[in-house]
């Protein structure tokens, strides 16, 4: 590729000076790898234009020269693309070059972003005075919206209706008063009976009861009287009999019954 040289006007050297470049493509890559020129200043379009013009002048395509050009140009394009687009893949040969270019790019970006942050900082008060509200919680059950006031009136009507119904009912319900049969009364009755007749069968005493209350009173009276030793109990063939006296009736033994003493 010795006979193909490129001319790139206004290339920036790293020391701040600007100079034109003239030479083969490989020289550009060499200068780039030594950080002698800035990749930003190399216009790929210019290089391609010159190559196309050179090719047109040759009026034929030399595959060897073209192949070399493509290799060089693709390297250049790759570095340029990496610089501009900040790709992430690595090329070993140009690692250092690329990382220095990336660092420079990052530095420039950070400087730009510091300016942007400053600009934003100057505006951060602009929206502070605007208050906004969150969305109303309107996802609830739909029946709790869209009610007519007439429904309240109906609810009130139902309450008064219930009151009227309650008023129609009789004020007091006749509840049968419990016939409290006093154990003391029943005990007196049993003692009177025994004074007259001497003995009475327990079954008869219970059978005479006209209510559950009287029956309970009779049962409890017998127990109480027996405990107070006012009466005695005798086990006969016809069942238990209540005796007028607590002392064991000799007749009981005579009859073959057992007087209950405890």
């Amino acid at each position, binding site marked *: 590729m010795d006979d193909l040289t490129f001319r790139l006007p206004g290339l920036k050297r790293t020391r701040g000076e600007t100079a034109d470049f003239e030479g083969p493509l490989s020289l550009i890559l060499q200068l780039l790898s030594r950080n002698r020129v800035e990749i930003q200043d190399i216009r790929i379009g210019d290089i391609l234009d010159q190559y196309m013009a050179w090719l047109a002048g040759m009026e034929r395509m030399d595959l060897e020269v073209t192949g070399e050009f493509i290799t060089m140009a693709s390297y250049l394009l790759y570095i*340029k693309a990496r610089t501009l687009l900040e790709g992430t893949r690595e090329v070993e040969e140009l690692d250092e070059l690329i990382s220095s270019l990336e660092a420079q790019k990052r530095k420039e970006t950070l400087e730009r972003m510091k300016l942007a942050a400053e600009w934003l900082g100057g505006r951060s008060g602009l929206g502070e005075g605007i208050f906004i509200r969150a969305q109303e919680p309107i996802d609830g059950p739909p029946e709790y919206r869209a009610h007519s006031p007439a429904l309240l009136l109906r609810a009130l009507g139902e309450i008064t209706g219930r009151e009227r119904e309650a008023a129609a009912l009789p004020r007091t319900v006749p509840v049968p008063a419990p016939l409290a049969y006093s154990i003391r009364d029943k005990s007196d009755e049993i003692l009177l009976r025994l004074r007259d007749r001497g003995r009475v069968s327990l079954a008869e005493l219970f059978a005479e009861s006209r209510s559950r209350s009287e029956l309970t009173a009779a049962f409890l009276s017998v127990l109480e009287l027996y405990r107070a030793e006012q009466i005695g109990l005798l086990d006969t063939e016809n069942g238990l009999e209540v005796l007028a006296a607590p002392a064991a009736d000799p007749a009981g033994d005579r009859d073959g019954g057992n007087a209950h003493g405890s």
Partner: protein
Amino acid sequence: MEADGIIESILFAAGEPFPIPRLMALLDLSREEVLAAARRLGDRYSYEHRGIRLLVLEDALQLGSAPEYADWVRRALDTRKPARLSPAALEVLAIAAYFQPVTRTYIEQIRGVDSSYTVGLLVEKGFLEPCGRLDAPGRPMLFRTTAAFLRVFGLSSLEELPSYGDAPEIAGEDLQALAEGLAEVRD
């Protein structure tokens, strides 16, 4: 116009920024028509010195209180002015605003310092939001700025951010020249 009233009702009920495309679909209107209705509403609020303002936040509309009455609102609701964002937070926001969507690692690469706390803080404040994951090892989370960011910085769109440097445009020119050159080679 009826659309103005409908949009006003929707924005009132929504509270939060409401997407313009949804309004377009709901009302069967073009983007320009929705924006014109929004402009009419906003102009009326300002002209009549009303207490609300209509905010255009990129691709959404939102109702907010009028900033000139902010002190009255603060006194009524007993709130204080929010603390100013730190320079570090502003840097992170600037990087996110210009290069979004960005990963936390990308922000850290540019700033050269750990930025996880600041990113978390900005997400908490509602200025940044996650927007998917980068298709790269580790699948890092991507972040972008929110409508709240635009509102607080008094912006209607990210396009209002000032331009610093023009590197991407150079790339565009070069690629175009290359494409033309290659087309010529093929011919």
